[in-house]
Each structure stands twice: as C-alpha cells, then as structure tokens.
C-alpha cells in the first residue's frame, strides 16, 4: 500500500463525500456548507485527476453522492441537508464543460437526506435511486421515462416499524411520531443495495438508534409494498450501539453475500448472508432438503473494534474481498479474509504526521 496521488479539489469547505463512477475513472466530490458544489474529475492517462466541471447543486450542504450504472447513462445523484435528492445528467456535446443537467429534484423527505444510492442495473431495467433521511424513511424513486425527467416515488418504507420477516403484519402506514431529539443526536441512517439482481431488488438498511440491519425486498412496481426478508440482530452479548454505516459486498456470483456494518461505538461486523436454496436443486435432491432453507439467513462471521471510536464508513472493493473502514480516530483500515476464514487487518492509513522525521511507515 502506498499513497499514489493527491488532489486538491479546490472547494471552499471540507469535502463531505467522494464517489467513483462505475469504471473508477471519474470522481465526484461534494462539499459542506460554504459552497454546496459538486465537482467532477476525470482520471488522466498518467493517473492524475483533471477537473471536468463544477456547479452549485443544492441550497444546503451536500451529504452524499452516487453515480448510476452506465447502462442508465451518465447520472449522478446528490443528497443534501436541504431535504432533497437531485439527479444530474452529464451534458453532451457543446455544453460539455458546463454544469450537469438537473433531471429531477426528488422531495418528500422530512429531514436531511443522509444517503443516496443508485440501484444495480440489468439490461432493460429502469434507473432507481434509494435514499434514506433522518425521518427514518427509505424512499425509492425510479424513472421509466427515457428522458429521465419523470421520477416516481415508490411506497416510502418506514424502517423502524417494518414487520419482522415472515410476519403477516401490515406495515404501519401512518408511521411514527417525529424522531426524538435523542434519537437524532445519536442515531444513524444508511442503506446499501444488494449488488445482484437474481433475487430482485434487495436493499439493506438501518435507521435511528436501532442496531439492526433490515434487509428488504423492493417490488418492481411503484404501488406494491416491500417485504422484509431478514433482520440482522447483533449477536447476543454484543454491542447494541446504533449503526453508522452499512455496505453490501459485491458477491461476484458466490453462493453467499457479505454485509459489513459500522457502529457508533466502533464495532465493525461482517455478516454472511445466504439466499434461499435454489428451487431447481430441491427437485433433484430428496434426501437433504434441510440444506435448502426457505428464507434468507444470516450469521455474524466477524466482529471487531468494540469500544473504539465511532466508525465513519465501511465499504467493500469490487470483488467483495477487502473491507475498508474509517473511524473518528482518523484511521482508515483495510481488512481481508485469510485462508483460515478469519479476517485480518491488512494495513491502515492515518493522516497523522509520521513518527520520525524523514521516515515513513514501518
């Protein structure tokens, strides 16, 4: 591991979020209060970053960014303290150096929109964007219109009152009383799509003070309501500190999925999720049907960092084989599974000055 480069994005306030596009060739950077701008950079052949464009995107600090899958075009979504999500499309031809074109302002949230994430694509599907805000509602918007100017909101999902998987309860429609100030101060809100479409649109989400990751199946049409598939409760005697981030690893066709989460008290968990057994196989297999469980199931396969500083983010690489985390100690850590199926800390990064003048690392 080594530092390869640096970039001064030239914002007038600290950066709030950075996101790569599908190919890792473009970077979009958003900033906090002072300038409310988005900047887009493109990687040069030499590996440096050239600014392509910048524009003022919101009326309040921008919190999160997400690029769409390229099959849906060159789209960028941004969420903000101004309670909106905006969808931007890269201009073509002449307006190339100008700001991206605003295709939608997605509203409805009754709090800051903490996170926004474009769904995964398969051919012919329409772009979807999931958002979560401090009102604890997961909102999903999609656009069937090729010009992307018409986005419809799916049934909003109130995460705290989701019925447990398998229960027949109707989701509470009227929702909660307002989020309490304690919950606001200590809670967290996050989402992460399942990166495969085999089982339909599935998203992991958490909200408020709850330490539970809720895995929800999102119907294709805008009118049907979603179904809870699995709740990931922290293991017994483990920390019940509120979550701060969640990330669903690309499974690359493996038979299981990995989901990582970070908590306010520094706990990082890795969950191993198994989808229901394949139906086809059941037909061939009369003897050990017990292997073919009906629903989704999940086990916590690793847990570390209890009692540490708040985890800022958790994120997987493209093959779902290394996990990157940050915490309020200012440390970025990279974990990797070993051949013994445990997880090891591969390396870490800090912005602290090196221990001795002139000596790096070691």
């Amino acid at each position, binding site marked *: 591991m080594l530092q390869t480069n640096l970039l001064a994005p030239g914002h007038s306030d600290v950066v709030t979020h950075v996101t790569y596009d599908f190919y890792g060739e473009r970077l979009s950077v958003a900033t906090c209060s002072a300038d409310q701008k988005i900047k887009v950079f493109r990687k040069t052949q030499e590996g440096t970053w050239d600014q392509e464009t910048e524009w003022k995107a919101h009326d309040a600090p921008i919190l999160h960014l997400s690029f769409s899958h390229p099959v849906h075009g060159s789209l960028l979504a941004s969420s903000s303290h101004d309670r909106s999500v905006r969808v931007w499309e890269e201009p073509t031809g002449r307006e190339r150096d100008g700001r991206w074109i605003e295709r939608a302002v997605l509203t409805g949230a009754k709090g*800051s929109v903490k996170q926004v994430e474009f769904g995964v694509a398969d051919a012919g599907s329409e772009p979807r964007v999931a958002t979560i805000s401090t009102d604890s509602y997961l909102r999903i918007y999609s656009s069937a219109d090729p010009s992307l100017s018409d986005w419809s909101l799916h049934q909003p999902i109130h995460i705290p009152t989701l019925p447990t998987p398998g229960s027949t309860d109707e989701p509470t429609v009227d929702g909660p009383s307002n989020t309490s100030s304690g919950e606001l101060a200590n809670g967290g809100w996050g989402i992460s799509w399942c990166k495969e479409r085999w089982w339909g649109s599935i998203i992991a989400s958490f909200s408020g003070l709850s330490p539970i990751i809720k895995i929800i199946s999102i119907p294709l049409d805008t009118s049907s309501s979603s179904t809870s598939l699995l709740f990931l409760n922290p293991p017994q005697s483990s920390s019940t500190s509120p979550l701060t981030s969640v990330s669903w690893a690309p499974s690359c066709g493996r038979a299981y999925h990995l989901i990582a989460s970070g908590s306010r008290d520094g706990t990082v968990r890795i969950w191993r999720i198994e989808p229901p057994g394949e139906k086809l196989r059941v037909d061939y297999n009369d003897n050990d049907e017990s292997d073919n469980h009906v629903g989704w199931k999940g086990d916590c396969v690793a847990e570390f960092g209890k009692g540490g500083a708040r985890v800022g983010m958790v994120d997987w690489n493209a093959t779902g084989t290394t996990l990157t985390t940050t915490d309020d100690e200012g440390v970025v850590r990279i974990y990797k599974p070993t051949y013994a199926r445990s997880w090891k800390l591969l390396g870490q990064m800090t912005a602290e000055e090196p221990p001795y003048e002139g000596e790096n690392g070691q």
Partner: protein
Amino acid sequence: MAPAPTGFSFSTPSGGSPFSFAPQSQKPPASGPSTFPLGSSSSFAAKPSAPASNQDADGMDEDEAIEDGEDEDEVETCYLQPAAYPKGEKKKWKASGRTISATVSPAGGEIASWVTKKPASNPNEPSQLSSTSLSISDRTIFFTSLSSLPNSLIQLYTESHLLFTSLQQIVAESHSRRLPSVGMEKIAEAWDRRGNLVGVESLLGPPDAETIMHMRRLADLYLDQLAELKGNQDVDVELRTRFTAFYNILNLAEVLYLPVDGKGEGLVGEELLDWVNDVDPAPDNSQGNDIMSTKNPWDHPSFFPYVSRCILRGFHLPAASFLRSLTNHSYTPISRLASLLAQHLSIIPRSTEERWRVDLEFLQAHKQWLAKFRAELASFTGGRGRGKWFEVDTYRAWESDFRIVVELMEGKPTRILEEASDWREALGAWGTLVDVDMRRDHLPEVMAMILDKIPVDTTLQEDAIQSALCSAEIIKALMGCYDLDIWLSAHLGDLLDKLELVPDDEQRFEIPLRDYFLLEYAEILQNNPKYSAFWRVICDYLNYAGQEGRNRLKSHIMRISISLDSTQKGKTKQIDSQTAINQDEGMDVEEEGESKEIQEAVRLLDEVRAACGEFKLEEEFKMISQILAGKLIRIGEYGMAASMSMMAGDGWALSRIAETILDAYISDGDEEFLRLVDTLPPTLLSEAPTALAELQSQLDPSSGLPDLPATSALSIFASRLTFLSEFRDYLLFLTQGARDRAASKLVGLLTSGIAPVGIWAVLLVESVTLLEDSEILFSSNETFELLRVLEEVKSNATFAPSDYLLQLIQYLQQISKSKTDQAENSQKGMKIGFEEGWKKLDEVRLALARNLARALVGGFDSPF
C-alpha cells in the same frame, strides 16, 4: 489406463497423512521478511496477499484481538501526506470536529480518503468545525493503492501469463485426448445426485507421461524467466533474492514432480544433488586453491573438511586429487591409504554415466565397487581395529580424518548426517552415497530420517517450503509459498494441482486451493494502479480459476473502460468552432489526435469483444455494447452507436437511433440528415430492406396476419432503418433533379407502412412542391393514395395533434428559421403552432386536388 499414481507421486492414495495440514494450521507464519519489498521508500510496503504478522487469528475471538493496541502496532501503516496534524496532537485535531472518511474505487484497488466533519448533534443541521480556517490537508483528497508492482515483477507477471495459458491448454487437450478412454458408464457416474456434472476430468486421474513432459517444458520456461530476472543487475537486489528463492523452489518442484521421463520412476539422487549444488554451491573453489597452494596441503586446517564437503557434494574427482597430494606424505601408511581412497573415489559409479543401459546395471556396478573398496580397505587395515590404523603415535590422530572419508564413501548414514552442514546437503548426499537406489517415492521416509537429526530452521521460509516439497507435504509447501509470494503459490499451485497432488480442504476453503491462489494472484493484478494494462492477463487467470473466477471475470470485464467517447472532452467545442470557420483546415489536425484515441479505443473494443467471445461472455458483451451505444448516441456518434447496438442485438436502440436521425431532418434539414445517415454502417442500411422483406414474407399468406407481433423490436428497427434508407434515396433524387423518381419514392414511403406516423404530415407537405411541378409527377392513383393518407392524418390529428402534427410544426419552424436567417429576421420564426400546421395540410389538400385534376385531364392515365 492412467499411469499408476505410485510412479512418481508420493501421494499413495491410502496414505493421506502427508497432506494433512493440521500440524501447521495453528502455526503462525514465519515472521521473517514477509513484507513485500516494493522498493518504494515513501510508503510502507505491503503485500495484500501475504498474511500480516498478526494473522494467526483463528475465529472471531482472535479477530477482536486485531484491534488491540499492540497488534495494531505491527500492522503496516501508511502515513498520508500532507499530514493533518503533528504527532501527539490527535486529540486536538479530533476535538476540532474533524474525522476521516474514505471510498473505494471499483477498479484498480484505489482508495480515496479525505478529512471531513463529524456529524453534528442534530443531523438535520450542518456540522461545524471549531475553527473555520482550513489547513492544506483539509483541502486534500488522498489516494492510496493497495499494491504497486515494480517493473521487474510486471515483466515476470506479463511473461509468465503466456506460459500459464499454454499450460492450461496443454492439460485440457490431454484431457480431451484421454477422455474417450474413460468408459461411458464412468462418464454417466460423473453426474452427482443433485444432477450436476462433476467434471469428467476428475475421472481421468493424473496426467499421462506425455503431458507431464510437456508440463516440464513449460516449467523450464518459467525457470528461464526467473533465471533471467535473478541474474539481471538492473533488478533491485532484494527482488533478485526473491526471484532466486522462486527459482530454487520451482526448480525443486520440477525435479520432484515433473520428471524428465514424465513417469518419475527413475533414480532421483543425482538430480537432487545438482539442485543442492545449484541452490547452495559448495565447497568454495578459492578455498580449494588456497589449500592446494600451501606446501603440504594436508597441513592446512581445512584440508579434510574440504575433502569431506567435496564427497558430500558429489565432486569425487577433486576430492580424489586432494587425497592424491598425500601420496607425497613421508609416512607410508598414510600415503598408501590416501592413494587407495583416491583411486576408489575416482571410480565410484554414478547413475548419470551413459554406460548404464538400465538402472540395474548401475546398481550392480555400485555394489561391486563398494565390495571391492571394502575388500581392499580391509587388506590395508589388515584387521587392525579402531585407533590402530596408524601405528606411529605422531600419525595416530589421522585415523579419524580418514575414517570420515571412508565412511562417507561407504555411505554410512550417521556419518553423512554428522558431516552435512544442513538438511539439503544431507539429502543431496543421501541419493548418491547412502541409498543410490533412491526413488521419488522414498523421499518422505528419507526426509524423516534426515530431519530427525538436522531439523529445518523454520524461520527460513525458503527452507521450510523446500523441505515440505521433499517430504511431499504439498499443502504445507504451498502455504509457505503463499506467505512468500502470491505469484509463486499461484503458479506452483497450478502445476501441482494439475498433477492431482493438491487435496481439497473443504474445512478451511470453500474453493480448491489452486483456485484460491489464482484468485489472490488475480487480485494483486486487479488492485494495482496499472491494472488496466493487465486486463487481459487478469481475464485469463480468472477464467481458469474455477466458478468463482468465472464469476469475477464477468464483473471484471464489465468494468473495462472503453473510451469511445473520451475525445469529446473539451475538443468537440474547438472542432465545432473551427469547422464553422474553416471546414477544410484546422479539422485535420484535431482529427488526427482524435482519431488516434478513437483507434486505441476501437482496438480495445475489438480485444474486449474477442475476449468475450473466447470466454463465452455473450451477455456481458451485450451489456458492454449497450452501454457504449448509449454513450455514443448521447454524443451524436450515431454510426458507431448503430454498430454497437447491432453487436448488442439491441433493436430498440437501433430504432431510437433511426428516430434521432429522422429528428435531425425535421429540426436541422436535409443536409444534416444526409450527413448522419452516411455515418451509419452501409450494410446496416442496405440489409434493412431485405430484413424487412423477410419479416413481411413471414406474414401468413392466407390471413395476412403476421406471425410475429407487428411491434416486435426486430421489425420496428428493420422498418425504421428501411425508412431511413428510402428517405435518403428520396432526398438524393430531389437534389439530383430526378423529380419524378422522387415523387414515386415519396408515395412509396407513405403507402408501404414503413414511415412512422409522426412524419406523415411532413412527407405530405414535402409533396406540395412536387405536386405543383410543371410536369405531372403523380398519377391519379398515387394522388388518391396521398389523399387517403392526408385524411387519416387530419382525422387522427383532431384527437392526437401532438402525435400527428408536432413533427410537422418543428419542420415548419426549421424551414421558416432558415428562411428568416436569410432574411436577417429572427423574430418571426418561433411563432408556428398547430394552427399553422392545419393550414399547411389544407395547402396539401389543395395541391393534391389540383394535381388530381391535372392527372385525370392531361396526365398519362387520362381516360380521355
């Protein structure tokens, strides 16, 4: 029949114990130089594949230990520059409301991190820093890479790739060659209870001798590459050491597991000895010269040790000549004995001599030699016992030195083990002195005896791996390689796996060990800043790394960025302005630079297409084409977009392109239309009418109803493209002055059903000038047809005006705009609405009526 595995393989199927790697599973890897010396001083060097020093965590509890302070100290830390705060001022920095965040690139393993604000206590309010002034680090995004490869490694990785793929092909071919020899009933058994094909390969057993010989040749080529690198003075010295280690391990593996004859039934002693002498050359020549140059060489303190070393290392002639120097010794028994030993030493039979037709001849010769040697020795000693060889007291002590030589020559195990400086030397001597009949199968047993007396220094990774290979502890050896270097474990693992020497370990691995190593290796390639140069190499390794590799290959290939649209950046603007000023000059210069980039992109696209074909990734290639087509449509490169859509089999995209081009006619006029149509692949246009005709011929002749749904993507895009082609012909006729042909084309367009409804009104308006030509260009029948279309447009437009009239209005706007441009009056142009459209249609009706009258009265179909 597959050759019996007992030949060279140590893996007697019943045994299995050599393969159990339970013993080393709890063992932490050697804490030696496990870091990857990347030769970069500005960062900590890390090898993502190599377990860090604290990796012996096994299970969750130990995982937690990872985070504990002392362990963390051992983890490699990258200090980001410029630093955010001085050492010891972390608290202050944290208290200012700052924290760090990061994001991971989906390709290349890059991590971007940046200093940001902690969330505010009210998440609906913006966070604040205690002070608003920003430091340099606050304004920086730091990029780090998980692995970075020095050039010499890149050279090895690139060159060995070709050998790796050849190896896969050779073994695959041997499988298909041998497959028919497996009975059908066995193949039937290859289906498991769940109905999955479990791979017929496993029925075949290890490869045949011929294949193993081929494999050996490829292993030789791996070795050649390593030899070149380890000897290259330009390569960093640490790396050369590593390459030497790779070379020695791979070479040993070749000696043991890829025998020259492909069977491995022969004697292995001399080959092993050669390997030992190669890995650790001894004795030192200069020391020998030193000894011989003294007046009485035997007075040199290293005389006898040097002779012993020579014998152990198989240098019997030099040893003999050293001993011969003793013939000048003044004490006769010594000179006699020395001469006797030298004589026999120089004629010890060696299995490498060419005079043996079969091993047995050599073995008998050796036996005879030993018997003769012992007999003559006995006659020298004359039955004198220990301590009595030399009767003069001064020379009595010489006996022990001579005994060592004698016992080494006799191959006395205890003596060999005492004299050998390490286990390797002992092993080398064993097969040439102790057990001249040593075969590969005997090695584990021999190794056990040797290691019992001379244990391996486990802190030396290389030694641990080599001894494990000799002991047939394959898993242990591979795990050691994995700790040493991922290239080595991937390629050696692949070779050994092909020989079916690597057992599955489902307890610890969900995938075969070989695949695991290959995936780890591919990941090193993927997680490095130059990954894009390796994309094809990565494809091959992933493709051959089992199901998981195949799955990763699918997502890998999708993320190869093909910048067919990259040239638009900034440049388009210049070109546009330049073309406007001067179309002839200026553009060429720009286009050269541009076309080079485009050529690069097209070449990459061709390679990706070829790769998708080779790896049977049709779905992925469709998706790639679809994405590219979308990008190209957005930048107006319709021709290339159409080609991409064809590759994607995306009829909808093709008809979208056709519609876009037609829109260009309506909004920009015929010149733009013709330019765009000409960018389309000619075959696309020329084949479209045939394709459409074929589709139409599938109409059920009796009912006239199509078998296919009329709106199927295929028929729509075929008809759209046909329309484009026919409409172009119409415009060309018009510009060429062939007005009669233009007229009949126009009628054809409106009556054949290929024109989209939106354009009908436009075509009708187009007909006006032709209708009012001085010549009569439309027959009465044609005019009736046009009238019918006009009525349809008018009646439909009453309830769906935008569907039927919108394009007409845009068309009228365009015409009036170009007119007003000429008239230098831009005010008027934009005021055209539906009313204008209706009016225009009335004009058409009038023109049609007039033409009908003319056609009936004076035309060629006049009834009069």
